[in-house]
């Protein structure tokens, strides 16, 4: 029994160690967010937080629920697969409440050249014009209907 006669300090040391470990675990449980480690070494809740942003572009399917007439105009034309908000700008607010926000009127003289101004870097098969020569400053919708731009009976 001689070997253990001064063993008291070992137990005290063990008690301090256990208390320290407990304190660490308690503090850690407060500091580490609940969802940390749910899917991996990150906060699982971060995904829902990222997903919670409001939407600005309503998406063409939403537009088409009301504006089926425009879809009809577009469907056989060259712009059939150009989504509404590619030209009309993001309109989720308008889709949310049509009276709250009216889409601004577009200026075709500015809008069309964004895509159709000739540039040597554009794919060769993409329809391009040098706007200054092509229309001498007239807005494009003088001749072309933007939703189906081919001039009927004439060239595409």
């Amino acid at each position, binding site marked *: 029994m001689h070997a253990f006669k001064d063993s008291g300090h070992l137990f005290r040391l063990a008690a301090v160690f256990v208390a320290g470990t407990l304190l660490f675990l308690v503090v850690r449980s407060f500091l580490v967010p609940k969802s940390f480690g749910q899917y991996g070494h*990150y906060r699982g809740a971060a995904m829902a937080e990222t997903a919670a*942003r409001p939407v600005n572009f309503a998406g063409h*399917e939403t537009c*088409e629920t009301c504006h089926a007439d425009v879809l009809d105009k577009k469907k056989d034309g060259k712009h059939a697969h150009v989504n509404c908000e590619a030209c009309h700008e*993001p309109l989720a607010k308008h889709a949310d409440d049509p009276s709250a926000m009216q889409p601004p009127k577009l200026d075709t003289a500015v809008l069309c050249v964004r895509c159709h101004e000739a*540039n040597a*870097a554009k*794919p060769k098969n993409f329809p391009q014009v040098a706007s200054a020569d092509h229309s001498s400053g007239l807005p494009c919708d003088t001749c072309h209907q933007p939703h189906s731009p081919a001039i009927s009976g004439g060239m595409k």
Partner: protein
Amino acid sequence: MSITRRHLLLLLPAAAVAWKHVLAGTPEASPNYTMSQHWWGMLIDLTKCIGCGNCVRACQTENDVPDGYFRTWVERYHVSDYDIENPHVDSPDGGKKGFPPTKEASGKNFFVPKLCNHCAESPCTQVCPVGATFVSPDGVVLVDKKYCLGCRYCVQACPYGCRFINPKTETAEKCTLCYHRITKGLTTACCESCPTGARQLADLKNPHDPIHEFLKTHSVQILKPYMATHAKVFYNGLDGSVR
């Protein structure tokens, strides 16, 4: 293919679901979305890109990206016939306002849109010291704004230069693949606004996604494959000079 009345009717249920989320107005998580059923990527068809900058503008509006910083941008390449190793690349204001006329019509000229490649083995997430950036179970590389220290390790680690520090929040920022949209059944803002369909969101886990047919029938590449990042942004018609 033009959209017939029949197709429109088929689209209506999807639209109704999407519209409900738009109508909800307030931010919300997506109850009908199961992460394990998706594995997101993107297809970029360079033969269709016209450098209009719609994607860059759409991204900035949709995600409040500060001026002068880009989650996606468009580069213009000029490769002269005899110097394929040294392309001349420009991207004025990220291509946000389109591009000025291409001066040298000789050689090769083309546009390359860039964004986060949402690598399956992403170098940027591996260097984060606090677990603030990660590959989500549905394959999107995201940043946890609340956890990010702004240490810039990830900005340096990305081989594609897709990250930046937001000057307001001082945290790392990058393309989220419009996580707030794709989890609601919508496509990304850049894909929605692309007039030529050069950008297509792709769900690699969805067997009906047209990406599978496209990958089978086209010569598709990723950027810097030698980095073994397992990037999920696939480029069709990618020139060898693109870095």
